């Protein structure tokens, strides 16, 4: 936690903005701490999130998209909300330019369980926009100091169309590496698309990752999750070896404001990462 008072954000500067998708409503913001102490205190692991803070607008809990192996900055990939409910903070963030300063509180929540993942084969399954903290983990695992700590890495990532894939340059780079098996798919391609077409669950079935000494990390829209989980059960993955990251409306991010509970767990402080086994113990109230 950056501050002694967990409700006070630390200042950060937006040093780089990447327009990720054709619809221009998802951008990656690179943030650099204004104070070195704050940067030193922001010790995070992949899977954690932070509250991005704009005075006069509010705060939004956003997963950290960069990896702690990338010092000097933190990155957040943010969708501009507002189609259904006013996305006050995300809209304000999207309207900012490089050089603007915002606030950050964190790091918050648990993380992908790095120790549990060590020495195991890792299957990362992502859909659409829900790929940001998985990207953090992939960066972390691919770092030269970390790669040997993990077994085979398989990434299955899909989006509705090629223009909606996040981190396009990185996806292309992963396909060229031999220490990560990367399968990128789109529901429907276009004329320029040379890659694979097909829904994520079907691609998972086709790729059929072995459950042996493997953990699957699955994040995506509800429909994708719904049809992907049976595939992994059929492949023989146990509920303890399937992990996901939950979302709930949040305010404080530190387990105090009472908003994001699912049963007796607070998603912000007990999660957001849960195994399916853990979720089975909780009421379906999310």
């Amino acid at each position: 936690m950056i501050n002694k008072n967990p409700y006070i954000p630390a200042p950060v500067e937006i040093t780089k903005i990447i327009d990720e998708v054709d619809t221009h409503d998802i951008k990656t913001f690179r943030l650099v701490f204004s104070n070195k102490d704050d940067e030193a205190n922001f010790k995070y692991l992949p899977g954690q999130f932070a509250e991005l803070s704009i005075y006069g607008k509010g705060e939004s809990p956003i997963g950290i998209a960069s990896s702690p192996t990338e010092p000097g900055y933190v990155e957040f990939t943010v969708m501009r909300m507002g189609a259904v409910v006013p996305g006050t903070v995300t809209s304000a963030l999207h309207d900012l330019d490089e050089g603007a300063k915002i606030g950050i509180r964190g790091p918050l929540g648990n993380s992908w369980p790095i120790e549990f993942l060590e020495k195991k084969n890792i299957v990362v399954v992502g859909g659409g926009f829900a790929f940001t903290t998985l990207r953090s983990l992939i960066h972390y695992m691919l770092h030269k100091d970390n790669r040997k700590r993990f077994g085979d890495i398989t990434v299955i990532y899909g989006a509705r169309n090629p223009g909606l894939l996040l981190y396009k340059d990185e996806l292309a780079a992963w396909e060229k590496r031999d220490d990560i098996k990367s399968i990128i798919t789109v529901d429907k391609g276009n004329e320029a698309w040379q890659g694979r077409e097909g829904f994520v669950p079907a691609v998972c079935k086709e790729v059929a990752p072995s459950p042996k000494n493997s953990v699957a990390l699955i994040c995506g829209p509800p429909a994708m999750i719904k049809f992907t989980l049976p595939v992994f059960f059929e492949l023989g993955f146990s509920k303890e070896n399937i992990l996901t990251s939950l979302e709930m409306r949040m305010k404080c991010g530190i387990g105090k404001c009472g908003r994001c509970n699912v049963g007796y767990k607070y998603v912000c402080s007990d999660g957001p990462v849960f195994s399916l086994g853990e979720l089975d113990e909780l009421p379906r109230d999310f």
Partner: protein
Amino acid sequence: MLKKISINKISELAAALMDKGLLLAPVKEISGHNFAEIKDPKQVDLDFHNTIASPKSVFFPHKEDFIKYETGKPIDAASEVALNLPLTFLFGVRPCDVKSFSIMDIHFNASGITDPYWKQRREAAVIFGYAFDLEKSAHPEEFYQTLGIGAADPEGSDVFMVKKGGDLLLNSVTPKGEKLLGELKELNEGKAADKKYFDEYVKKGREHKTRSMCLEPEAVTRKLEDLFYNTDFWTRVSSVCISCGVCTFVCPTCYCFDICDDTLFGQGIRRRVWDACMFTDFTLEASGHNPRTHVYQRLRQKINHKYSYHVRKYGVISCVGCGRCTKYCPVNIDIYSIIEDAMKA
């Protein structure tokens, strides 16, 4: 240390406490009593059963300012709002409400990250607990006995007070309370007979009847877990609920809050304000998804939070049986009856 003072002279005690710090005590308002800052020692009125609002607002005010800023100015120019709390005397708190503080302590102080506001406000306060009048019946909505709380339990107070005829007996419970009592010259020494009266009063308080049922935390937790998907049950018990949230605001152990930015004429404040799980948009996400759109889901959340989730998370039921939620519910929803029905369902 046992001291005493004539109830007629309570304003002298109030004046002495006002000399030392901020005094918060029951004050008669149009529709009943509430804790308020005492400006005139004569305002203190101990002729009350319990306050309308719980005293949680002393430690968890309905709005707590975090940060002040000017809109359009750089974020570095914003300033944290300092608390600067005076020594605070919270005078005349009923035992069930005193108990609520320790339940809230677990959540705000003892679990995970400490809430700096709750902690500082708690540390600045001296609590004068006050036994219910055992000569009078408990009110029909009350059920603190069910939660194992006596009508004259001194635990959790710094000083505990009992009425004896025209006198008020004040017994120190903590070193903080003992030090204070030693400093107050307005108080007389309690006699051995007073001490005996005090001890017996505390004991009799354990038998003071409120609505009561046998409620074992683990058993009610399991029962509510079994009942979670019984939509018929939750729909029935919530059928008249209007989601107004009054139950949560008067409750001494409800702690849900919102963090919001208020801006006016270029001046902004980031603050927390009370919120309620009974409101429709409490869990409404930016995507439009809302896990609790139905009123039955929200009442189920509230009951489960207090009697099941809190037990699982912290080992205690988050209810002290003060009965305020029942008394002030505009449609007469009674949490006690819901728990009773749940245990039979």
